[in-house]
């Protein structure tokens, strides 16, 4: 047994297989493990340094999130100047390097509704992959921005999941939505969605990509007119990208 605790200190990959909440709880086991878990913050520092316009908070309590969501609902989507909002990152099964921000907060607010099947009894998405960079991602997600990032990968049924999520967001009068999906090319569904919301898609997604995407996302949030953001990512679908350049005000599809 002792061997595992000792090795766990260096085998950060073990944390990949535990939900974020359980990892946080493990900080209380011992100083050594706490130190290891606490050291997983490099990426957070990089992001906050690189993107000062993205404010950062330690965590958002369930009650705060609930209040925020209620506030959105009451104000029919209007954003009060002083109100802060968490980004809602909804993850789906697969290899995507993104996880749900605070899913149980959304679930408690009735926000996820039919997505409850994806929520474990702890309220943590049981299907979202979490690894060390992903744990760092969770921390990075907790930022005060107003856009909901709907994330999916190319697993079966992802279109319906995106559709369902967007529908839920729309029910709450949330219109600032960015669809973030890992597929090889734009299909008819994404084209349809891209008529209403920005769509970002990748064939591969790394932490660096996410980092760059957040920068792009930040621009989306702060500029309603923005239609063609090309951060230094791989351009995977040049023809579609050219279309964006040709009709910048109509197309909101960003292809990296």
């Amino acid at each position, binding site marked *: *047994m002792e061997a595992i605790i000792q090795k766990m200190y260096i085998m950060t990959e073990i944390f990949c*297989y*535990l939900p974020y909440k359980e990892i946080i709880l493990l900080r209380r*086991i011992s100083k050594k493990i706490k130190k290891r878990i606490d050291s997983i913050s490099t990426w957070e520092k990089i992001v906050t340094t690189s993107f000062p316009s993205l404010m950062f908070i330690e965590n*958002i309590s369930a009650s705060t999130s609930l209040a925020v969501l209620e506030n959105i609902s009451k104000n029919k989507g209007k954003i009060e100047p002083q109100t802060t909002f968490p980004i809602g990152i909804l993850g789906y099964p697969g290899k995507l390097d993104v996880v749900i921000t605070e899913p149980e907060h959304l679930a408690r607010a009735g926000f996820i509704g039919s997505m409850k099947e994806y929520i*474990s009894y*702890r309220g943590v998405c049981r299907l979202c992959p979490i690894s060390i960079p992903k744990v760092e991602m969770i921390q990075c997600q907790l930022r005060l921005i107003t856009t909901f990032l709907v994330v999916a990968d190319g697993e079966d049924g992802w279109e319906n999941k995106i559709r369902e999520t967007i529908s839920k967001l729309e029910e709450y009068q949330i219109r600032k939505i960015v669809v973030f999906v890992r597929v090889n090319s734009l299909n008819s569904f994404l084209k349809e969605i891209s008529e209403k919301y920005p769509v970002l898609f990748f064939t591969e997604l790394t932490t660096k990509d996410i980092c760059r995407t957040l920068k792009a996302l930040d621009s989306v949030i702060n500029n309603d007119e923005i239609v063609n953001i090309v951060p230094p990512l791989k351009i995977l679908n040049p023809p579609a990208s050219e279309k964006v350049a040709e009709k910048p005000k109509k197309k909101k599809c960003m292809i990296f």
Partner: protein
Amino acid sequence: MSEITLVSKEGTKIQISSQFSNLSGFIHNILQDYQQNEDISLASVSFINLQMILEYAVHHNFQVPQPPRCPITSPNIADNVSDPWDAEFVNRLNEDQIIDLVTATNFLDMKSLMDLCLAKIACMFKYKDIETLRKEYGITEEFTAEIEEKLKSDFPWAMEAESND
């Protein structure tokens, strides 16, 4: 099908299909400049571990299997893997053996088996409260009451979830 010769750290030789490179990044890289009949020395892999690794590779027909569910949803590894054989394989190992196997698979850059072992270890922690874990792992109280309080207040939502359980 060509075969390669692997040599464990004890010097024992084992012949295996070169398809093993599908599962091991280390072997894959070695085979880029491989001379026929050349032995491949695995200085960090014991004979016992090598046998287990090859058993796993043969069972999966040298193809990368479905990874364990991530994060795990149950403390039972069988609920987190698609192939029951994987669960049986890893369940018959004791903790020290699992750790050794992780080290060996790390050396071989054999992600699929390493993931299986790590998922198994994560299962040992799943749904266990701090006191149970401390007791099981023989960890005596390390934090002062003050620090303990701070740890709870650092992430109140995590503690909230714990109390809900």
